[in-house]
Protein backbone atom coordinates (compact mmCIF):
# COMPACT_ATOMS: atom_id res chain seq x y z
CA UNK A 1 0.00 0.00 0.00
CA UNK A 2 1.21 3.46 -0.75
CA UNK A 3 2.11 6.07 1.85
CA UNK A 4 -1.05 6.76 3.86
CA UNK A 5 0.34 9.61 5.90
CA UNK A 6 -0.43 13.29 5.26
CA UNK A 7 2.09 15.42 3.39
CA UNK A 8 1.62 18.35 5.76
CA UNK A 9 2.86 18.55 9.34
CA UNK A 10 0.36 19.20 12.12
CA UNK A 11 1.78 22.72 12.53
CA UNK A 12 0.76 23.45 8.93
CA UNK A 13 -2.76 22.16 9.50
CA UNK A 14 -3.06 24.43 12.54
CA UNK A 15 -1.73 27.37 10.57
CA UNK A 16 -4.34 26.77 7.87
CA UNK A 17 -7.12 26.70 10.47
CA UNK A 18 -5.81 29.94 11.96
CA UNK A 19 -5.66 31.58 8.54
CA UNK A 20 -9.27 30.61 7.80
CA UNK A 21 -10.37 32.06 11.17
CA UNK A 22 -8.49 35.33 10.46
CA UNK A 23 -10.10 35.68 7.06
CA UNK A 24 -13.60 35.09 8.40
CA UNK A 25 -12.98 37.67 11.15
CA UNK A 26 -11.69 40.17 8.57
CA UNK A 27 -14.85 39.92 6.47
CA UNK A 28 -17.19 39.78 9.44
CA UNK A 29 -15.74 43.10 10.64
CA UNK A 30 -16.37 44.60 7.20
CA UNK A 31 -19.90 43.33 6.80
CA UNK A 32 -19.14 40.99 3.91
CA UNK A 33 -21.46 37.97 3.77
CA UNK A 34 -20.05 34.45 3.50
CA UNK A 35 -21.82 32.38 0.83
CA UNK A 36 -21.61 28.91 -0.71
CA UNK A 37 -22.28 27.99 -4.32
CA UNK A 38 -22.15 24.56 -6.01
CA UNK A 39 -18.87 22.87 -6.92
CA UNK A 40 -20.50 20.94 -9.77
CA UNK A 41 -21.71 23.17 -12.59
CA UNK A 42 -23.53 22.35 -15.79
CA UNK A 43 -21.53 24.95 -17.75
CA UNK A 44 -17.77 24.99 -18.18
CA UNK A 45 -15.49 27.95 -18.57
CA UNK A 46 -14.56 29.16 -22.07
CA UNK A 47 -11.09 30.50 -21.14
CA UNK A 48 -8.74 28.63 -23.51
CA UNK A 49 -5.99 28.47 -20.86
CA UNK A 50 -8.16 26.72 -18.27
CA UNK A 51 -9.35 23.14 -18.53
CA UNK A 52 -11.95 21.85 -16.08
CA UNK A 53 -12.32 18.33 -14.73
CA UNK A 54 -15.54 16.57 -15.62
CA UNK A 55 -17.86 14.34 -13.64
CA UNK A 56 -19.41 12.02 -16.21
CA UNK A 57 -21.29 9.24 -14.44
CA UNK A 58 -24.09 9.15 -11.90
CA UNK A 59 -27.85 8.93 -11.81
CA UNK A 60 -28.13 12.60 -10.90
CA UNK A 61 -26.45 13.56 -14.17
CA UNK A 62 -29.66 13.32 -16.16
CA UNK A 63 -28.75 15.50 -19.12
CA UNK A 64 -25.04 15.98 -19.36
CA UNK A 65 -21.79 15.66 -17.45
CA UNK A 66 -21.02 18.37 -14.92
CA UNK A 67 -17.88 20.40 -14.56
CA UNK A 68 -16.02 20.78 -11.31
CA UNK A 69 -15.82 24.53 -10.95
CA UNK A 70 -12.62 26.29 -11.92
CA UNK A 71 -13.78 29.26 -9.82
CA UNK A 72 -17.08 30.28 -8.18
CA UNK A 73 -17.20 33.50 -10.23
CA UNK A 74 -20.31 32.94 -12.33
CA UNK A 75 -22.48 31.74 -9.46
CA UNK A 76 -21.34 34.60 -7.24
CA UNK A 77 -22.16 37.13 -9.96
CA UNK A 78 -25.66 35.68 -10.12
CA UNK A 79 -25.95 36.34 -6.38
CA UNK A 80 -24.67 39.91 -6.88
CA UNK A 81 -27.19 40.54 -9.66
CA UNK A 82 -29.89 39.27 -7.30
CA UNK A 83 -28.91 41.95 -4.79
CA UNK A 84 -26.69 40.05 -2.36
CA UNK A 85 -24.45 43.02 -1.59
CA UNK A 86 -20.79 42.31 -0.70
CA UNK A 87 -20.06 38.57 -0.54
CA UNK A 88 -17.15 36.20 -0.09
CA UNK A 89 -16.62 32.49 -0.42
CA UNK A 90 -13.94 30.02 0.63
CA UNK A 91 -14.19 26.96 -1.59
CA UNK A 92 -12.39 24.30 -3.54
CA UNK A 93 -11.71 24.88 -7.22
CA UNK A 94 -10.27 22.46 -9.77
CA UNK A 95 -8.08 22.92 -12.83
CA UNK A 96 -6.94 20.05 -14.97
CA UNK A 97 -3.26 19.57 -15.65
CA UNK A 98 -1.99 22.16 -13.19
CA UNK A 99 0.48 20.57 -10.83
CA UNK A 100 3.81 21.71 -9.50
CA UNK A 101 5.47 23.39 -6.56
CA UNK A 102 2.74 26.04 -6.53
CA UNK A 103 -0.11 24.21 -8.19
CA UNK A 104 -2.40 21.35 -7.24
CA UNK A 105 -5.30 20.35 -9.53
CA UNK A 106 -7.61 20.74 -6.51
CA UNK A 107 -6.99 23.91 -4.52
CA UNK A 108 -8.64 26.35 -2.15
CA UNK A 109 -9.83 29.75 -3.33
CA UNK A 110 -10.95 32.78 -1.42
CA UNK A 111 -13.12 34.86 -3.73
CA UNK A 112 -14.88 38.08 -2.85
CA UNK A 113 -16.91 40.87 -4.47
CA UNK A 114 -17.25 44.49 -3.42
CA UNK A 115 -20.09 46.48 -5.02
CA UNK A 116 -19.14 50.12 -5.45
CA UNK A 117 -15.39 49.55 -5.52
CA UNK A 118 -13.14 49.95 -8.55
CA UNK A 119 -10.07 47.75 -8.94
CA UNK A 120 -7.82 50.24 -7.14
CA UNK A 121 -10.04 50.30 -4.04
CA UNK A 122 -10.16 46.51 -4.10
CA UNK A 123 -6.37 46.26 -4.40
CA UNK A 124 -6.13 48.28 -1.18
CA UNK A 125 -8.53 45.89 0.52
CA UNK A 126 -6.60 42.84 -0.74
CA UNK A 127 -3.43 44.38 0.71
CA UNK A 128 -5.23 44.93 4.04
CA UNK A 129 -6.41 41.31 4.13
CA UNK A 130 -2.97 39.94 3.26
CA UNK A 131 -1.32 42.14 5.90
CA UNK A 132 -3.84 40.95 8.49
CA UNK A 133 -2.74 37.38 7.71
CA UNK A 134 1.01 37.79 7.09
CA UNK A 135 1.76 40.84 9.23
CA UNK A 136 1.99 44.48 8.25
CA UNK A 137 4.24 45.25 5.32
CA UNK A 138 4.47 47.89 2.58
CA UNK A 139 2.91 47.25 -0.80
CA UNK A 140 3.32 48.74 -4.23
CA UNK A 141 1.53 48.65 -7.59
CA UNK A 142 2.85 48.81 -11.14
CA UNK A 143 1.02 48.85 -14.41
CA UNK A 144 1.68 45.88 -16.70
CA UNK A 145 3.27 48.34 -19.09
CA UNK A 146 5.66 49.81 -16.49
CA UNK A 147 6.85 46.35 -15.52
CA UNK A 148 7.73 45.30 -19.05
CA UNK A 149 9.50 48.61 -19.63
CA UNK A 150 11.44 48.18 -16.41
CA UNK A 151 12.36 44.49 -16.76
CA UNK A 152 12.68 44.13 -20.51
CA UNK A 153 12.94 47.64 -21.94
CA UNK A 154 9.99 47.07 -24.22
CA UNK A 155 6.44 48.35 -24.45
CA UNK A 156 4.07 45.35 -24.31
CA UNK A 157 1.33 47.32 -26.05
CA UNK A 158 3.32 48.50 -29.08
CA UNK A 159 6.29 46.12 -29.52
CA UNK A 160 5.89 43.95 -32.63
CA UNK A 161 5.76 40.19 -32.34
CA UNK A 162 9.29 39.78 -33.78
CA UNK A 163 10.66 41.90 -30.92
CA UNK A 164 8.75 39.81 -28.38
CA UNK A 165 10.10 36.58 -29.90
CA UNK A 166 13.65 37.87 -30.05
CA UNK A 167 13.50 38.93 -26.41
CA UNK A 168 12.06 35.53 -25.45
CA UNK A 169 14.93 33.74 -27.20
CA UNK A 170 17.37 35.64 -24.98
CA UNK A 171 15.66 34.11 -21.94
CA UNK A 172 15.08 30.51 -23.00
CA UNK A 173 15.11 28.09 -25.90
CA UNK A 174 11.51 28.41 -27.14
CA UNK A 175 11.88 25.38 -29.41
CA UNK A 176 8.77 24.98 -31.49
CA UNK A 177 6.54 27.33 -29.48
CA UNK A 178 4.06 29.06 -31.71
CA UNK A 179 1.33 31.52 -30.91
CA UNK A 180 0.16 35.09 -31.01
CA UNK A 181 1.25 38.16 -29.06
CA UNK A 182 -0.30 36.96 -25.82
CA UNK A 183 1.70 33.72 -25.83
CA UNK A 184 4.97 35.65 -26.12
CA UNK A 185 3.87 38.21 -23.53
CA UNK A 186 2.98 35.33 -21.17
CA UNK A 187 6.41 33.82 -21.75
CA UNK A 188 8.17 37.11 -21.02
CA UNK A 189 6.02 37.57 -17.94
CA UNK A 190 6.77 34.12 -16.50
CA UNK A 191 10.46 34.06 -17.47
CA UNK A 192 11.56 37.64 -16.77
CA UNK A 193 8.94 39.78 -15.02
CA UNK A 194 7.87 37.29 -12.36
CA UNK A 195 11.48 36.53 -11.33
CA UNK A 196 11.99 40.30 -10.94
CA UNK A 197 8.86 40.52 -8.81
CA UNK A 198 10.39 37.92 -6.49
CA UNK A 199 12.44 40.73 -4.97
CA UNK A 200 9.54 43.15 -4.62
CA UNK A 201 7.54 41.88 -1.62
CA UNK A 202 3.84 42.60 -1.89
CA UNK A 203 3.24 43.94 -5.35
CA UNK A 204 0.20 44.47 -7.58
CA UNK A 205 0.29 44.46 -11.37
CA UNK A 206 -2.68 46.19 -13.01
CA UNK A 207 -4.14 47.40 -16.31
CA UNK A 208 -3.44 44.43 -18.57
CA UNK A 209 -3.58 44.39 -22.38
CA UNK A 210 -7.21 44.31 -23.55
CA UNK A 211 -6.62 40.83 -25.03
CA UNK A 212 -5.91 39.59 -21.49
CA UNK A 213 -8.80 41.41 -19.81
CA UNK A 214 -10.65 38.13 -19.19
CA UNK A 215 -13.77 39.30 -17.30
CA UNK A 216 -12.59 42.87 -16.59
CA UNK A 217 -13.93 46.12 -18.01
CA UNK A 218 -11.93 47.94 -20.64
CA UNK A 219 -10.75 51.52 -20.26
CA UNK A 220 -8.60 54.02 -22.15
CA UNK A 221 -5.22 54.65 -20.53
CA UNK A 222 -2.40 56.68 -22.13
CA UNK A 223 -3.64 56.01 -25.63
CA UNK A 224 -4.10 52.26 -25.16
CA UNK A 225 -7.12 50.17 -24.28
CA UNK A 226 -6.46 48.25 -21.07
CA UNK A 227 -8.35 45.63 -19.11
CA UNK A 228 -9.04 46.84 -15.57
CA UNK A 229 -7.61 43.67 -14.14
CA UNK A 230 -4.97 43.16 -11.46
CA UNK A 231 -2.77 40.41 -10.13
CA UNK A 232 -1.16 40.28 -6.72
CA UNK A 233 2.34 38.89 -6.40
CA UNK A 234 4.01 38.29 -3.06
CA UNK A 235 7.75 37.66 -3.32
CA UNK A 236 7.14 36.70 -6.96
CA UNK A 237 4.41 34.17 -6.19
CA UNK A 238 1.15 34.94 -8.01
CA UNK A 239 -1.50 34.95 -5.30
CA UNK A 240 -4.62 36.73 -6.53
CA UNK A 241 -6.38 37.89 -9.68
CA UNK A 242 -9.01 40.62 -9.64
CA UNK A 243 -11.25 42.57 -11.96
CA UNK A 244 -13.24 45.73 -12.12
CA UNK A 245 -15.99 43.47 -13.37
CA UNK A 246 -17.38 43.60 -16.86
CA UNK A 247 -21.14 44.19 -16.59
CA UNK A 248 -21.99 44.54 -20.29
CA UNK A 249 -23.85 41.43 -21.44
CA UNK A 250 -23.21 42.05 -25.14
CA UNK A 251 -19.49 42.42 -24.60
CA UNK A 252 -19.44 39.40 -22.27
CA UNK A 253 -21.14 37.19 -24.84
CA UNK A 254 -18.72 38.39 -27.52
CA UNK A 255 -15.74 37.49 -25.31
CA UNK A 256 -17.12 34.01 -24.58
CA UNK A 257 -17.61 33.46 -28.30
CA UNK A 258 -14.11 34.73 -29.09
CA UNK A 259 -12.74 32.27 -26.48
CA UNK A 260 -14.61 29.44 -28.18
CA UNK A 261 -13.24 30.42 -31.60
CA UNK A 262 -9.75 30.34 -30.10
CA UNK A 263 -10.49 26.95 -28.53
CA UNK A 264 -11.72 25.58 -31.86
CA UNK A 265 -8.64 26.87 -33.66
CA UNK A 266 -6.40 25.17 -31.12
CA UNK A 267 -8.32 21.88 -31.32
CA UNK A 268 -9.79 22.26 -27.83
CA UNK A 269 -13.44 21.41 -27.14
CA UNK A 270 -15.76 24.42 -27.30
CA UNK A 271 -17.79 25.17 -24.19
CA UNK A 272 -21.49 25.95 -24.10
CA UNK A 273 -21.99 29.49 -22.76
CA UNK A 274 -23.26 30.01 -19.25
CA UNK A 275 -26.63 31.47 -20.22
CA UNK A 276 -27.62 31.89 -16.57
CA UNK A 277 -24.67 34.22 -16.03
CA UNK A 278 -25.49 36.15 -19.21
CA UNK A 279 -29.12 36.48 -18.08
CA UNK A 280 -27.92 37.80 -14.71
CA UNK A 281 -25.76 40.40 -16.48
CA UNK A 282 -28.72 41.36 -18.64
CA UNK A 283 -30.81 41.79 -15.50
CA UNK A 284 -28.11 44.07 -14.13
CA UNK A 285 -24.89 43.48 -12.26
CA UNK A 286 -24.08 46.30 -9.82
CA UNK A 287 -20.80 48.16 -10.46
CA UNK A 288 -18.48 45.78 -8.63
CA UNK A 289 -14.91 44.61 -8.31
CA UNK A 290 -14.03 41.04 -7.43
CA UNK A 291 -10.91 39.03 -6.70
CA UNK A 292 -9.91 35.39 -6.34
CA UNK A 293 -7.03 34.62 -3.99
CA UNK A 294 -5.22 31.29 -3.77
CA UNK A 295 -5.35 30.33 -0.10
CA UNK A 296 -2.83 27.52 -0.40
CA UNK A 297 -0.33 30.01 -1.78
CA UNK A 298 -1.05 32.52 0.95
CA UNK A 299 -0.36 29.72 3.42
CA UNK A 300 2.83 28.92 1.50
CA UNK A 301 4.03 32.47 2.16
CA UNK A 302 2.82 32.51 5.77
CA UNK A 303 4.65 29.28 6.55
CA UNK A 304 7.87 29.96 4.68
CA UNK A 305 7.50 26.65 2.83
CA UNK A 306 8.43 26.46 -0.84
CA UNK A 307 6.32 23.53 -2.00
CA UNK A 308 2.55 23.54 -1.79
CA UNK A 309 2.51 19.76 -1.42
CA UNK A 310 3.90 20.14 2.12
CA UNK A 311 0.90 22.31 3.07
CA UNK A 312 -1.89 20.13 1.75
CA UNK A 313 -3.00 17.34 4.07
CA UNK A 314 -3.16 15.15 0.98
CA UNK A 315 -1.86 16.51 -2.30
CA UNK A 316 -3.02 15.11 -5.64
CA UNK A 317 -0.43 12.31 -5.51
CA UNK A 318 -1.55 11.22 -2.04
CA UNK A 319 -5.29 10.88 -2.62
Amino acid at each position, binding site marked *: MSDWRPGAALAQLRQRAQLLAQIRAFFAARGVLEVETPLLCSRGITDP*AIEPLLVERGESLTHAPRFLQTSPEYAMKRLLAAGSGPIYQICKAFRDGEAGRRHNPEFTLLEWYRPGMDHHALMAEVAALVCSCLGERPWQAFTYRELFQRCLQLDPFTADIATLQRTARQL*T*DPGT*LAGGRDLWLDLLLTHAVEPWLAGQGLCFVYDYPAS*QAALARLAQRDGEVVGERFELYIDGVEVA*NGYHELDDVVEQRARFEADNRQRAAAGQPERPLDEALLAALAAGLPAVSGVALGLDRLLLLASGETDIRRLLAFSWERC
Partner: protein
Amino acid sequence: MANFSTNEFRPGLKVMLDGDPCSILENEFVKPGKGQAFNRVRMRNLKTGRVWERTFKSGESLEGADVMDRSMEYLYTDGEFWYFMEPDTFEQHQADAKAVGDSYLWLKEQDGCEVTLYNGTPLSVAPANFVELEIVETDPGLKGDTAQGGSKPAKLSTGAVVKVPLFVTTGEVIRVDTRTGEYQNRVSK
Protein backbone atom coordinates in the same frame (compact mmCIF):
# COMPACT_ATOMS: atom_id res chain seq x y z
CA MET B 1 8.34 4.11 -27.13
CA ALA B 2 5.64 5.76 -25.08
CA ASN B 3 4.97 9.47 -25.22
CA PHE B 4 5.42 11.60 -22.13
CA SER B 5 3.48 14.79 -21.45
CA THR B 6 5.18 17.77 -19.78
CA ASN B 7 3.39 16.94 -16.53
CA GLU B 8 5.15 13.54 -16.57
CA PHE B 9 8.61 15.03 -17.05
CA ARG B 10 10.65 13.94 -14.03
CA PRO B 11 14.38 14.27 -13.43
CA GLY B 12 16.05 11.30 -15.08
CA LEU B 13 13.36 10.74 -17.72
CA LYS B 14 14.90 10.23 -21.17
CA VAL B 15 13.10 11.71 -24.16
CA MET B 16 13.75 12.33 -27.85
CA LEU B 17 14.08 15.96 -28.87
CA ASP B 18 15.02 17.12 -32.37
CA GLY B 19 16.29 13.58 -33.09
CA ASP B 20 18.61 13.37 -30.09
CA PRO B 21 18.12 11.52 -26.80
CA CYS B 22 17.95 13.93 -23.89
CA SER B 23 17.73 13.54 -20.14
CA ILE B 24 15.38 15.72 -18.07
CA LEU B 25 17.23 17.45 -15.23
CA GLU B 26 14.58 19.81 -13.86
CA ASN B 27 11.01 20.66 -14.79
CA GLU B 28 9.24 23.76 -13.51
CA PHE B 29 5.59 24.48 -14.25
CA VAL B 30 4.98 28.23 -14.60
CA LYS B 31 1.74 30.02 -15.37
CA PRO B 32 0.83 33.66 -15.34
CA GLY B 33 -2.37 34.28 -13.36
CA LYS B 34 -4.36 33.93 -16.55
CA GLY B 35 -2.99 32.76 -19.84
CA GLN B 36 -0.60 30.22 -21.25
CA ALA B 37 1.05 27.74 -18.89
CA PHE B 38 4.60 26.68 -19.67
CA ASN B 39 7.09 24.11 -18.48
CA ARG B 40 10.64 25.37 -18.15
CA VAL B 41 12.70 22.25 -18.58
CA ARG B 42 16.43 21.91 -18.00
CA MET B 43 17.72 19.07 -20.11
CA ARG B 44 20.95 17.43 -21.13
CA ASN B 45 21.51 16.34 -24.70
CA LEU B 46 22.98 12.88 -24.17
CA LYS B 47 24.83 12.93 -27.49
CA THR B 48 26.53 16.29 -27.12
CA GLY B 49 26.44 16.74 -23.35
CA ARG B 50 24.93 20.21 -23.78
CA VAL B 51 22.78 21.35 -20.86
CA TRP B 52 20.20 24.03 -21.53
CA GLU B 53 16.69 25.23 -20.71
CA ARG B 54 13.88 24.66 -23.15
CA THR B 55 10.36 26.02 -22.74
CA PHE B 56 7.32 23.94 -23.71
CA LYS B 57 3.63 24.70 -23.67
CA SER B 58 2.19 22.70 -20.81
CA GLY B 59 0.58 19.54 -22.10
CA GLU B 60 2.96 19.09 -25.04
CA SER B 61 4.48 15.65 -25.20
CA LEU B 62 7.72 14.04 -26.34
CA GLU B 63 8.54 10.51 -27.34
CA GLY B 64 10.47 8.52 -24.77
CA ALA B 65 14.06 7.60 -25.67
CA ASP B 66 15.31 4.03 -25.44
CA VAL B 67 18.12 5.00 -23.09
CA MET B 68 19.28 2.96 -20.12
CA ASP B 69 22.06 3.43 -17.61
CA ARG B 70 23.83 0.15 -16.81
CA SER B 71 26.54 -0.68 -14.31
CA MET B 72 29.28 -2.49 -16.20
CA GLU B 73 32.85 -3.67 -15.84
CA TYR B 74 35.50 -2.15 -18.08
CA LEU B 75 37.44 -4.93 -19.81
CA TYR B 76 40.05 -3.52 -22.20
CA THR B 77 40.62 -1.42 -25.28
CA ASP B 78 42.03 -2.47 -28.63
CA GLY B 79 42.87 1.11 -29.50
CA GLU B 80 39.75 1.62 -31.59
CA PHE B 81 37.02 0.43 -29.25
CA TRP B 82 36.60 0.08 -25.51
CA TYR B 83 34.93 -3.09 -24.26
CA PHE B 84 32.53 -3.33 -21.33
CA MET B 85 30.70 -6.25 -19.76
CA GLU B 86 27.40 -6.49 -17.90
CA PRO B 87 28.35 -8.37 -14.71
CA ASP B 88 25.08 -10.33 -14.42
CA THR B 89 24.67 -11.47 -18.04
CA PHE B 90 28.33 -11.28 -19.17
CA GLU B 91 27.02 -9.51 -22.26
CA GLN B 92 29.74 -7.39 -23.82
CA HIS B 93 29.39 -3.97 -25.43
CA GLN B 94 31.89 -2.06 -27.50
CA ALA B 95 32.02 1.71 -27.26
CA ASP B 96 33.70 4.01 -29.74
CA ALA B 97 35.89 6.99 -28.92
CA LYS B 98 32.94 9.37 -29.24
CA ALA B 99 30.98 7.52 -26.56
CA VAL B 100 33.96 7.15 -24.26
CA GLY B 101 35.05 10.77 -24.64
CA ASP B 102 37.48 11.85 -21.93
CA SER B 103 36.38 9.03 -19.64
CA TYR B 104 39.19 6.81 -20.98
CA LEU B 105 41.50 8.81 -18.71
CA TRP B 106 39.88 7.17 -15.69
CA LEU B 107 39.16 3.65 -16.96
CA LYS B 108 41.17 0.87 -15.36
CA GLU B 109 40.61 -2.72 -16.37
CA GLN B 110 38.07 -4.53 -14.16
CA ASP B 111 36.85 -1.29 -12.61
CA GLY B 112 33.12 -0.65 -12.49
CA CYS B 113 31.59 2.20 -14.43
CA GLU B 114 28.25 3.33 -15.78
CA VAL B 115 27.50 2.87 -19.46
CA THR B 116 24.51 4.63 -21.01
CA LEU B 117 22.95 2.56 -23.79
CA TYR B 118 20.90 4.21 -26.53
CA ASN B 119 18.99 1.74 -28.70
CA GLY B 120 21.28 -0.91 -27.20
CA THR B 121 24.54 0.84 -28.14
CA PRO B 122 26.86 2.69 -25.74
CA LEU B 123 26.16 6.41 -25.93
CA SER B 124 28.35 7.56 -23.07
CA VAL B 125 30.54 6.14 -20.33
CA ALA B 126 30.85 7.55 -16.84
CA PRO B 127 33.72 6.31 -14.65
CA ALA B 128 33.25 5.76 -10.92
CA ASN B 129 33.45 9.00 -8.93
CA PHE B 130 36.72 7.82 -7.35
CA VAL B 131 39.34 5.65 -9.00
CA GLU B 132 42.71 4.34 -7.84
CA LEU B 133 45.50 4.59 -10.38
CA GLU B 134 49.25 4.09 -10.38
CA ILE B 135 51.68 6.94 -11.02
CA VAL B 136 53.98 6.04 -13.93
CA GLU B 137 55.90 9.27 -14.11
CA THR B 138 56.53 12.23 -11.82
CA ASP B 139 59.49 14.26 -10.58
CA PRO B 140 61.32 12.70 -7.61
CA GLY B 141 59.60 13.31 -4.29
CA LEU B 142 60.98 15.51 -1.56
CA LYS B 143 61.63 13.50 1.61
CA GLY B 144 59.76 14.70 4.65
CA ASP B 145 57.62 17.17 2.76
CA THR B 146 54.24 16.02 4.01
CA ALA B 147 52.91 19.42 5.02
CA GLN B 148 50.89 21.58 2.72
CA GLY B 149 52.88 23.21 0.04
CA GLY B 150 53.55 22.90 -3.62
CA SER B 151 52.29 20.39 -6.11
CA LYS B 152 53.67 18.80 -9.23
CA PRO B 153 52.21 17.02 -12.24
CA ALA B 154 52.05 13.21 -12.20
CA LYS B 155 51.25 10.96 -15.14
CA LEU B 156 49.01 7.99 -14.34
CA SER B 157 48.85 4.55 -15.92
CA THR B 158 45.85 5.60 -18.01
CA GLY B 159 47.61 8.65 -19.43
CA ALA B 160 45.80 11.15 -17.21
CA VAL B 161 47.93 13.89 -15.68
CA VAL B 162 46.93 15.14 -12.24
CA LYS B 163 48.49 17.50 -9.73
CA VAL B 164 49.89 15.68 -6.70
CA PRO B 165 51.73 16.83 -3.56
CA LEU B 166 55.52 16.93 -3.78
CA PHE B 167 56.03 13.88 -1.53
CA VAL B 168 54.21 11.44 -3.84
CA THR B 169 56.50 9.26 -5.96
CA THR B 170 56.43 7.16 -9.11
CA GLY B 171 55.00 3.68 -8.56
CA GLU B 172 52.59 4.78 -5.87
CA VAL B 173 48.82 4.34 -6.25
CA ILE B 174 46.66 7.38 -5.67
CA ARG B 175 42.96 8.02 -5.39
CA VAL B 176 41.49 10.62 -7.77
CA ASP B 177 38.07 12.28 -7.96
CA THR B 178 37.14 11.76 -11.61
CA ARG B 179 34.56 14.59 -11.57
CA THR B 180 37.21 17.22 -10.84
CA GLY B 181 40.43 15.38 -11.73
CA GLU B 182 41.73 16.17 -8.25
CA TYR B 183 44.14 14.07 -6.20
CA GLN B 184 42.55 12.76 -2.98
CA ASN B 185 45.14 10.66 -1.18
CA ARG B 186 47.73 7.91 -1.47
CA VAL B 187 46.51 4.35 -1.32
CA SER B 188 48.65 1.81 0.52
CA LYS B 189 49.36 -1.22 -1.61
